């Protein structure tokens, strides 16, 4: 009897396997499906909460904003038809395109998506001032009332298709801001009906839509084509998107993710675990030949700087001494780090804090620190700590997933006689400690929110000191502040870039940080995926993507 049971169980399992494997190849039915995996958890499909990579990728498929980015990171009109900026740079007038419709959704009368109005933008932007992880995006830029809170009239509807935004001062990268996912437009009806649950019931104008019941949280999400999408393929003049379905799985383990891609269960994989990197890349950072033929592999710079920060304002700590910081800067072999730990993925951070991915990057203008242990030893001696003697015990604070880099630095520092301890914490605990100023030397990274160096350099503006802003090094320099404010008043990108270079130079001279490397993206897709381009912001644009098997 028991054997019989066993046989039945096994047979039924096998039967299921057989019937399922047929449909798993995905494109067996005529539907065109694009599949990607998302680590790091998708927490919300509300644009106001689009702070993590996972949220940004999904939100980008469902919504549109006034602008999007061209490949060169310039803002490009999306829902905006025309715009006008007042001569003082404080008033922006936008006209939006006609005939853009929201997805069909029960929040509308009869469930039919209606046309986008200027009022929707104003409501969406005002909402962004009051909630979400994107609060900061308008809060310190738009016109403020006398009590310091953003004014009621900073966004104003002119007519159904026109509205104005009033700023308190000129902000040259404002159009870039309007291309970030935070500012995507949400219909008033959805805000009223779903409230805080908008993140589970997204309604947008984008190429794909989420139908009810197609998001199995932390397991899988299926997005369907928006049949009324407003864009056409400029070459063939056929309606976009080409894809019928986007499938997102949520596997947390990066090795499994890579194996799934290798097996053909995923169409795209970005950013690999260390083990998988070894499989794909040579030690030099080149893509292995046998791999390059099997898949389309691209390596491009990413808007991300990885660095070590020093808390410079504590006079009792050796990190307040410029020469100590400079010595430590010279002691790090960045190129070695990249080839040993990163398999050549990334660019050594030897030219300033602003990463190579940004248009203003110029290594001839801004010189950082290259490996020079001799000079490091000299500087240490000048600082009064020859061979590291007399230094108190130093600690490098880092997070648990970043152990290797900390150990690498520990060895490099030891070569010039500086012994450091490593203290590891969970990522969020680490960030709290850094923000509370409990760490003198700490691991950090900064991902650009929009492609302008201002976003990186604001980290060292003295008005952004923690706890009010992200300046955790407590670096403060009047000349730097002046340049920062001056750059804000400049619309001409070239003079602005010159200011950025000067600021970055000041930073390097004062070295409140050790820039380790500028990150790169390893972007791998299946050979049959066409129309998917990698960009330095690590965005995912699927509207032009097609599957050609």
């Amino acid at each position, binding site marked *: 009897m028991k054997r019989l049971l066993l046989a039945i169980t096994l047979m*039924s399992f096998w039967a299921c396997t057989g019937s399922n*494997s047929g449909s798993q190849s995905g494109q067996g039915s005529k539907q065109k499906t694009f599949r990607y995996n998302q680590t790091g958890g998708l927490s919300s499909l509300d644009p106001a909460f689009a702070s993590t990579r996972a949220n940004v990728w999904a939100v980008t498929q469902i919504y549109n904003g006034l602008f999007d980015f061209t490949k060169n990171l310039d803002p490009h009109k999306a829902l905006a038809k025309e715009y006008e900026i007042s001569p003082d740079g404080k008033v922006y007038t936008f006209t939006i395109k006609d005939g853009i419709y929201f997805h069909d959704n029960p929040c509308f009368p009869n469930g039919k998506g209606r046309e986008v109005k200027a009022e929707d933008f104003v409501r969406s932007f005002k909402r962004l001032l009051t909630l979400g992880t994107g609060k900061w995006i308008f809060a310190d830029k738009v016109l403020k009332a006398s009590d310091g809170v953003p004014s009621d009239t900073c966004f104003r509807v002119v007519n159904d298709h026109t509205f104005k935004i009033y700023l308190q001062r000129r902000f040259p990268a404002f159009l870039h801001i309007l291309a970030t996912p935070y500012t995507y437009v949400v219909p008033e009806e959805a805000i009223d009906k779903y409230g805080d649950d908008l993140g589970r019931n997204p309604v947008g104008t984008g190429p794909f839509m989420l139908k009810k019941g197609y998001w199995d949280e932390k397991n899988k999400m299926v997005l369907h084509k928006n049949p009324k999408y407003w864009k056409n393929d400029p070459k063939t003049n056929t309606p976009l998107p080409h894809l019928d379905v986007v499938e997102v799985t949520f596997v947390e383990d990066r090795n499994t993710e890579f194996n799934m891609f290798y097996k053909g269960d995923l169409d795209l994989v970005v950013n690999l675990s260390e083990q998988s990197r070894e499989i794909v890349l040579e030690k030099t950072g080149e893509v292995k030949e046998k791999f390059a033929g099997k898949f389309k592999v691209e390596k491009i710079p990413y808007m991300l700087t990885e660095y070590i920060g020093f808390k410079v304002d504590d006079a009792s700590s050796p990190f307040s001494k410029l020469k100590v910081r400079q010595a430590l800067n010279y002691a790090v072999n960045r190129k070695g780090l990249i080839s040993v730990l990163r398999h050549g993925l990334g660019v050594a951070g030897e030219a300033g804090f602003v990463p190579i991915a940004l248009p203003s990057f110029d290594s001839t203008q801004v010189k950082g620190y290259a490996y020079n242990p001799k000079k490091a030893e000299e500087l240490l001696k000048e600082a009064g700590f020859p061979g590291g003697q007399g230094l108190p015990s130093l600690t490098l604070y880092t997070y648990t997933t970043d152990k290797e880099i900390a150990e690498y630095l520990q060895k490099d520092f030891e070569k010039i006689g500086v012994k450091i301890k490593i203290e590891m914490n969970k990522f969020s605990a680490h960030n709290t400690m850094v923000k509370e100023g409990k760490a003198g030397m700490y691991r950090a990274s900064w991902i650009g929110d929009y492609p302008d160096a201002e976003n990186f350099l604001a980290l060292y503006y003295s008005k952004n000191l923690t706890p009010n802003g992200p300046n955790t090094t407590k670096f403060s320099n009047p000349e730097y502040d002046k340049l920062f404010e001056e750059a804000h008043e400049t619309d001409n990108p070239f003079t602005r870039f010159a200011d950025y270079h000067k600021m970055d130079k000041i930073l390097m001279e004062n070295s409140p940080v050790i820039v380790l490397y500028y990150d790169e993206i390893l972007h791998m897709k299946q050979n049959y995926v066409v129309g998917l381009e990698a960009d330095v912001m690590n965005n995912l644009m699927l509207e032009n993507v097609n599957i050609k098997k």
Partner: protein
Amino acid sequence: MLKYILNRLFYGFLVIFGVITVVFFLFFALPGDPAETLLGNKGNAEQRKQITQELGLDKPLILQYIYYLNDLSFVSIHKDTQKARKDYQYLAILKMGENVLVAKMPYLRRSYLSKKRVSEILYEDIGGTLVLAMTAMLLASIMGVTLGVISALNARTWIDYTLITITVAGISTPSFVMAILMANIFAFYLSEYTGLRLTGSLWELDAQYGYRIALSNLILPAFTLALRPLAVITQLTRSSMLDVLTQDYIRTARAKGIPKYVIIVKHALKNALNPVITAVSGWLATLMAGAFFIEYIFNWKGLGKTTIQAVQESDLPIVMGAVIIVACIFVFVNIIVDVLYALLDPRVRIN
């Protein structure tokens, strides 16, 4: 008997209360600010403060604990507001000024990150874990008994030695190592032949048909989870079978000329199974815990995967909720087993 059951229930309640207390203070004492998790490295002090207030994390720890117990209790006191009514869905018993004494189901709060009710999240997940654990148990029992009998009948031959070696390996390999091995071998290298996938849940979302059951996804996780109990059951059956086979009544049966097959199944196995059944009943709760890593590795939608992710994201309400649920299951299973023992053996009741 009733007194005995009540006694057990009371002890069970104490255990759960202890678990809640320990876990609460453990997690809230850990470093790491949930507001930090929510905001990332953007956002300023004011926003952090606001989030901390929203989550009630600015109050003294002991007060937070009392509020939490109040939320969990079936009978509790709350402010009578619209929001409270929506959150707790209570039945008011007695009005006391602006507060109200209510009866309600335990409220496990909402996830910090997704803002979804924890009870809802766990309710969706528990099915997957139960199916996985039950299937594993079924597999382990059937295969374990079969292999144990084979091993005992071929005692001290190469078949026996091979099986015993394999089972020792099965007992000593941690489940997460085994899970990775199984996934790589059967769902990666051999996937063309097996047709199995690296990850997947019982219910799969399909672009055309919505949710569909995918039993093939159950094979690898269930088998991996079954390996340990399978090994234990094999060895138990083997030794108990060997014991029984040497007894006089078996020799008598053989002498009477009863067919070998009948002797083994009807006479020997029936008696040899007693210790095995005891072991199996105790294993079910343990399997729920063993499922945690396996769910995570196979991305199987269940309690374990959700909990591990919640720990990584410092989503404390989910972690607390999951621990409480698992504790309740443990206590419940234990009570049932105790009661069954008491029914079978009156000596237990007196002690």
